[in-house]
């Protein structure tokens, strides 16, 4: 712990701390442009100069490049240092266009701040400015090279941090240019972070252009709800519209960066056709009317039928408050559910995952970044949990060995080992790797269940062969992490992955376990929904008239495949359909009573991410129809009203609490705390959450009281050996894609352009068997009522026997919950006019 003096104040810091960071600990913010905690120091901009009065090298030094040393005496405000920094700013401003009035960065621009605070108020340089032409970088990021101060952050972030390779630094000297080889969309789904890290306005938020200054916005720290990682975000709204999102900083999750799905996915909250009114039988009505009608219908049902004919459907996009309230409402009323509306089987897989998640094994994204061996099984990070890719990339940069076992054509922006394996065989490969790595290890400490588990591994091991280098890397590793998905896996795989993590967790090796769950609140949904049912069974029950009333609260899969004839048929059997949502869907349109609910930006709420961290969001704004959509922006005279148009929405838990008879305050903020208190008090394992709702920047780690570290489950040996490779059938799976499949973001207009066309990924051998060529149009005949036009994409790096198509919410899928469909070659039809 070297102790040094900065501006006459002493501080002790850990070894290898840079002076710039040591100063920051003292609250002294040394100016910086090229330095960024996530990118490290390169000493390019020279604006962090300090004067070293005592130390191995005295004089002007760059504080980002200088290790804090014992006995150093450093001045940040010495005249030489101040003069030099002022000179650096003057140099940087020589060519800057001074276009702050029309620059979107204005007001939150590091260059602006440093220019003012550095004392460079007067332009002295008499020469002309160099100018550049800008490039088209796609619909999300705006390029304005003239503003560039050549700090190199963008290229370092893009190439080194994320591993994508289509942005570079061109030219030389004072003409260096940061761009692509030509116009075109930035390929990285993390390109939006350029906006955040650029210290000036070279990269700005394109959809948010000219929509306001930082001080015009209502801003709040938020949690991203577009996958299960729970990245920190900062959301800005103005005129009742969400304008933009930035990455928040959260060392345990996203570090400093988010994906473009998270950044631009908020558009659903602003949609002009967002349902903002109560409806009865499809007709707009007052809140009172709808409220009364709902009560009336529910009372009738309860009187005429058994309460168990009422079912309640929820999803992973519901807040924790809604899920808990729904659970207790169902219990109290004797209703069926709550049923988790998740893609087929993902509910049970998630529950299995949480069951295996011993608190000691829980890995955060930080653990993933710092890991030296990662085995990702049944997950496609870029598409399912994009920012996980960045965590893997950091591990890989530090030398970690990374393997992905998954049937899909998994692509990551760095070198890794991919074993394209069918879901049936993934478990065997995992077992084989773990078994081989454990060979020769003393396992005498294991419980009988542990030994039995090991025997099971040995059995499975015999069924698979895996590359040696993976085994060697695992043997050598000290911090391995097993990452496991919950979609492209068999039901027992999450359990197996958890047990394997237990198994490789040895005294000299601390293993981590990281599940990717479905949806923002998959954790909560798994905990608070009814275990013995699911969306598929629910639909069966409707068909068989066992369920007559359906209350769908912010549903996911079910709601959005209702364009399919199969689902429309099922709906007809219902006596009563009650839908609560902030999205319009085939289901909401068919509702007898529709109640508009608030988005998380309007209601706030708690979400539990995939590792059990609870994060609460405060409401950002009141909501209501965006001012530009009301038509009330014209010239005076204007009509002034006390109400906010389109702001009738309520948090989804409010009607539930009402039906349950909870008496809540009419005041919004008060009843928010009341429902939170109710939520925490009624679920003991949530007691770590503060009643105030303030979970802080990092969130609260919630640990479910499940099996302990050394308790092994007796594994149901469900491996399906019947897989017949001679069968001509091909399994059609729907899979997640970064853009276009996640329900909320796929409704965001900003992302329209980046959603790829629907292509059917297949193995070259299957394509050959079916006589299909890459790029060819074809129609998949799902059944007599459902056809799906798409386009062939031949992928060499995937398992044989599958077709993967993106799980678009608008697909006319005939089977509930997007369950895979076996296709016979006859069902794969080439388009007419094909000349091949």
């Amino acid at each position, binding site marked *: 712990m070297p102790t040094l003096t900065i501006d006459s104040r002493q501080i002790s810091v850990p070894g290898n701390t840079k002076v710039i960071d040591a100063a920051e600990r003292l609250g002294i913010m040394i100016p910086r442009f090229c330095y960024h905690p996530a990118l490290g120091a390169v000493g390019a901009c020279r604006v962090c100069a300090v004067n070293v009065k005592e130390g191995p090298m005295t004089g002007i030094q760059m504080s980002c490049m200088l290790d804090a040393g014992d006995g150093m005496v450093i001045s940040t405000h010495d005249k030489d240092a101040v003069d030099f920094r002022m000179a650096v700013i003057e*140099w940087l401003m020589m060519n800057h266009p001074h276009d702050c009035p029309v620059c979107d960065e204005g007001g939150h621009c590091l260059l602006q701040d440093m220019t003012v605070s550095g004392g460079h108020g007067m332009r002295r340089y*008499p020469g002309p400015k160099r100018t550049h032409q800008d490039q088209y970088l796609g619909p999300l990021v705006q390029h304005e090279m003239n503003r560039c101060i050549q700090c190199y952050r963008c290229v370092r972030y893009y190439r080194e941090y994320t591993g994508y390779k289509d942005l570079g630094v061109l030219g030389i*000297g004072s003409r*260096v240019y940061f761009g692509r080889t030509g116009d075109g969309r930035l390929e990285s789904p993390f390109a939006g972070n350029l906006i955040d890290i650029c210290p000036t306005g070279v990269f700005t938020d394109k959809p948010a252009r000219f929509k306001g200054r930082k001080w015009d916005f209502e801003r709040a720290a938020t949690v991203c709800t577009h996958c299960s990682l729970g990245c920190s975000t900062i959301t800005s709204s103005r005129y009742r519209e969400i304008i933009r999102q930035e990455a928040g900083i959260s060392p345990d999750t996203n570090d400093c960066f988010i994906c473009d799905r998270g950044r631009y996915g908020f558009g659903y909250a602003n949609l002009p056709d967002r349902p903002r009114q109560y409806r009865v039988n499809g007709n707009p009505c007052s809140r009172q009317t709808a409220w009364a009608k709902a009560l009336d219908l529910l009372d009738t049902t309860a009187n005429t039928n058994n309460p168990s004919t009422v079912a309640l459907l929820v999803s992973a996009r519901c807040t924790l408050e809604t899920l808990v309230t729904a659970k207790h409402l169902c219990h109290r009323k004797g209703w069926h559910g709550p049923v988790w509306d998740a893609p087929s089987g993902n509910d049970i897989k998630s529950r299995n995952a949480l069951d295996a998640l011993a608190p000691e094994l829980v890995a955060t994204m930080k653990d993933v970044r710092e890991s030296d061996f990662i085995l990702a099984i049944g997950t496609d990070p870029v598409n399912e949990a994009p920012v996980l890719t960045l965590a893997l990339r950091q591990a890989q940069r530090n030398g970690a060995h990374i393997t992905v076992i998954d049937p899909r054509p998994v692509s990551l922006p760095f070198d890794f080992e991919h074993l394209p394996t069918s879901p049936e065989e993934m478990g065997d490969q995992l077992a084989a790797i773990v078994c081989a790595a454990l060979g020769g290890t003393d396992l005498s400490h294991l419980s009988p269940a542990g030994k039995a588990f090991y025997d099971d591994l040995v059995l499975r091991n015999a069924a698979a062969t895996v590359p040696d280098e993976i085994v060697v890397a695992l043997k050598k590793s000290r911090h391995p992490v097993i990452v496991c998905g919950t979609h492209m896996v068999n039901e027992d795989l999450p359990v197996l992955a958890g047990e394997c993590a237990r198994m490789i967790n040895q005294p000299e090796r601390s293993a981590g376990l990281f599940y990717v769950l479905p949806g923002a609140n998959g954790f909560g949904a798994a905990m608070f929904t009814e275990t013995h049912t699911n969306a598929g069974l629910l639909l069966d029950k409707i068909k068989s008239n066992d369920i007559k009333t359906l209350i769908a609260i912010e549903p996911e899969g079910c709601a959005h495949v209702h364009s399919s004839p199969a689902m429309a048929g099922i709906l007809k059997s219902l006596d009563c359909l009650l839908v609560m949502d902030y999205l319009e869907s085939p289901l909401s349109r068919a509702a007898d009573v529709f109640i508009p609910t608030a988005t998380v930006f309007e209601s706030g709420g708690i979400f539990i991410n995939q590792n059990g961290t609870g994060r609460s969001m405060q409401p950002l704004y009141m909501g209501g129809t965006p001012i530009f959509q009301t038509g009330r922006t014209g010239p005076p005279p204007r009509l002034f009203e006390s109400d906010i148009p389109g702001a009738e929405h309520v948090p989804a838990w409010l009607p539930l609490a009402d039906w349950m008879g909870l008496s809540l305050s009419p005041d919004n903020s008060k009843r928010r705390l009341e429902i939170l208190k109710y939520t925490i008090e009624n679920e003991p394992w949530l007691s770590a959450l503060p009643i105030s709702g303030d979970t802080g920047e990092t969130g609260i780690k919630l640990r479910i009281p499940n099996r302990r570290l050394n308790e092994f489950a007796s594994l149901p040996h469900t491996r399906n050996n019947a897989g017949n490779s001679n069968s001509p059938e091909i399994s059609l799976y729907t899979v997640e894609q970064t853009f276009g499949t996640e329900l909320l973001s796929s409704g965001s207009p900003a992302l329209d352009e980046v959603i790829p066309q629907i292509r059917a990924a297949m193995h070259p051998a299957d394509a050959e068997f079916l006589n299909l060529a890459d790029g060819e149009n074809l129609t998949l005949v799902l059944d007599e009522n459902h056809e799906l036009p798409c386009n062939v994409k031949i992928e060499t790096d995937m398992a044989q026997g599958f077709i993967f198509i993106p799980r678009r919410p608008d697909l006319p899928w005939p089977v509930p919950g997007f369950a895979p469909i076996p296709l016979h070659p006859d069902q794969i039809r080439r388009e007419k006019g094909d000349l091949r």
Partner: protein
Amino acid sequence: MSNKYPQILFQNRKPDRIATMAEYKESGGYQALADALSNRSPAQVQEEILDAVLLGRGGAAFPAGRKLETVAEDAPHPRYVVCNADEMEPGTFKDRVLIHADPHMLIEGMILTGYAVNADKGIVFIRPEYEGAAKILEREIRFAEKEGLLGENILGSGYTFFIDVHRSGGRYICGEVTAQLNALEGRRPNPRKPPPYPTQKGLWGQPTISHNVETLCCFPHILRNGARWFRDLALTETGAGTKIFSISGKVNRPGCYELPMGVRLSEIIEVHAGGMVEGSTFKACLPGGASTGFLTPDFYDIEMDFDTLRKKGHRLGTGAIMVFDQKTCLTAATVNLLEFFARESCGWCTPCREGLPYIKHLLTLIENGQGSEDMIPTIKKMSAQLWNSYCAFAPGAVAPVESLLVYFEGEVREHIKLGRCLLGD
């Protein structure tokens, strides 16, 4: 040519052609290699070089022997020897002449360096303007390989060393050792900041020794004749060896001359370069390339070695002497030098990338008679601030500016007073 001094590096130099391998051998070439491979350990080779006080001839004057020692004995393989033939310092052309004179001397020097650090591969990094020299080297390397002097199991010693020629795309910054490593790796040639030093982690992250052509050419002679002999070649106590001076500008016989270290500037100009051209008198010279400061007539008799110049606040640099006469405006000459540096700055760090064009612009205004008095302190202060840039490029670039404002401030101020250049056209 009236050169009374021993010709070592130029012993086989001919006015019209390249020395052949046979001629090189005849003059004692490859004896040092044969001797080292059979009679000396790498450590002994290092010791001899260290003892010879051979200072790097590329401009930085770092002791070549000390550099060799920094490659740890147990350092990983492959290890590289890089020959820096990216001679781009304005005024400097000695390496081109050396390669054209006696290419095998360089090849032997590289092999000996390789042997001294147990390196596996040598690479000549050469500027694209020297395509002729590159072709010569490629051809002569093949000849050396044929004779078993290079390649697998050299002279049956068990030592294996290969040499490749790598052409640069052409930029001054590529001559900077760490930038050159990036260039060799097919990356943008921005300098790298040590640590780690190239001798620990250089090319492809492997231990790498970089030497200038002239430095490497000294190796065979030192090893053949001994460190003592090499040191005694110099005329001064502090110097060692000979130096190839490339002299240009307003002299009668511009060219390369091999002279003892410590020879007087006046002798170089008057005796070897044939004196000033008709009608010219000596006004100043840059003693070692564009990144050194002006020497005024007060220094006319100075002993040209690294130490003497350093003590007087100057640098011998590459020993490229550019002579200016009384008819040349040094303000304009400095603008020209700044144009060079501003154009060649790699663009990595702010002071160099923006500061050089800034100073150039101010000095251009002064030269054109549009300057103002306040520009002079600005240029002085900014030049000093450019010392705080990322690599040695900018400090070198401001050397002429700083010395201009020390020795010729009056001349610069004249421009401002008169509103024009007295010497200009």
